[in-house]
């Protein structure tokens, strides 16, 4: 059985918003409705979803903590689907936000290029960081001591968190039940595959009993998930076209999820200015408009989009 300790709640979301891990830092751990009788309880949240869903993210957190206090919000990495709710949560709860040390200066300067929002055309409301975590650090949350590990590959600055006492890993986009996130560094000429392989080896060595991923359900069969992730990595290595093609498809699907419907011509125009897609097109040696149309058609063929004339709809 996938039993979480009583002090931890795993809030599964979708592909536009990442999952949240919510932990009660007070002992004994209490959740709604008992939480309201024992104020002030303190809670820690990991990651906050995409900005479009920020109202629901706040409702979900409040659903569990009642009048308790969200004291800390910790981000695994700063892609828009992991920290888009940061600003609203900080404003509504007064929580202190902790980001990866490697991203701290970018947050302080609110460098939209370095933070990837300019390059992806995604939106993230500005927030302030109270502090930072780096590989080798530890923190207490949910009655457990969490180790901070580097998890480059999907994002060079990403962190993952491991609680050895319970064997629980918060894996962000480094390992899902079926795969892992796009290797973004590879698109812009940096290395990501070797790093991803090292992260999979690290996870194997940590030997978690339960993984709480950034997207999709939590899972216990880590050996099987590592096997699938390694097969996927091998396939990416054998076919260099695959990572950039997947990246374009993932970003198109993200835009469909965000906007629900797109005017195809206008979408292609706006996407032509996003540096990540342009970088993928350059790697593939094809014009970006053609690749975007192909991605839309591919999504339609697997039932992940519907095309009607000039419009594309999310399915």
């Amino acid at each position: 059985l996938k039993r979480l300790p009583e002090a931890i709640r795993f809030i599964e979301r979708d592909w536009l918003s990442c999952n949240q891990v919510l932990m009660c830092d007070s002992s004994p751990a209490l959740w709604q409705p008992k939480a309201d009788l024992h104020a002030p309880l303190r809670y820690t949240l990991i990651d906050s979803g995409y900005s479009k869903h920020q109202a629901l993210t706040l409702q979900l957190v409040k659903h569990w903590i009642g009048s308790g206090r969200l004291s800390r919000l910790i981000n695994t990495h700063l892609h828009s689907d992991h920290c888009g709710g940061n600003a609203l949560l900080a404003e509504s709860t007064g929580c202190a936000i902790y980001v990866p040390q490697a991203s701290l200066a970018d947050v302080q300067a609110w460098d939209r290029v370095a933070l990837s929002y300019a390059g992806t055309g995604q939106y993230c409301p500005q927030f302030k960081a109270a502090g930072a975590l780096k590989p080798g650090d530890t923190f207490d949350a949910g009655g457990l001591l969490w180790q901070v590990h580097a998890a480059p590959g999907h994002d060079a600055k990403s962190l993952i968190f491991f609680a050895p006492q319970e064997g629980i890993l918060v894996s962000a986009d480094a390992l899902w039940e079926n795969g892992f996130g796009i290797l973004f560094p590879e698109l812009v000429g940096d290395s990501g595959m070797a790093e991803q392989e090292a992260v999979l080896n690290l996870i194997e060595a940590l030997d978690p009993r339960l993984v709480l991923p950034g997207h999709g359900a939590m899972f216990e069969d880590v050996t099987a998930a590592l096997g699938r992730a390694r097969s996927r990595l091998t396939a990416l290595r054998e076919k260099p076209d695959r990572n950039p093609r997947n990246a374009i498809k993932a970003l198109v699907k993200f835009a469909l999820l965000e906007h629900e419907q797109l005017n195809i011509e206008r979408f292609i125009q706006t996407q032509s200015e996003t540096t990540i897609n342009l970088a993928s097109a350059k790697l593939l040696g094809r014009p970006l408009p053609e690749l975007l149309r192909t991605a839309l058609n591919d999504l339609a063929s697997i039932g992940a989009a519907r095309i009607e004339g000039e419009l594309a709809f999310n399915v």
Partner: protein
Amino acid sequence: MSIASPCISVCRMDGASKLCEGCLRTIDEIASWGGMSEQEKLMVCDAIEHRKVAHARLSADVEGGRYDGGKSMESEAVNGNLSSRANKR
């Protein structure tokens, strides 16, 4: 593999029905989904199927000016006591 989440990325709660406009789950069902057993997830999926029918009827009643605040929705859906109108949409 686990039972797939019913979430379709709409993620807006309807103030009247107290259900998500997209997946027709309550806030408690969304908040608890990630920690549910497979059996509990199946029960939520069943409840969603009932609500889909009731939701169609609710929409028809709102259009017809007979909206009752959603009070009849849950009990009728669970009892399976659905009028023929319910399946129109």
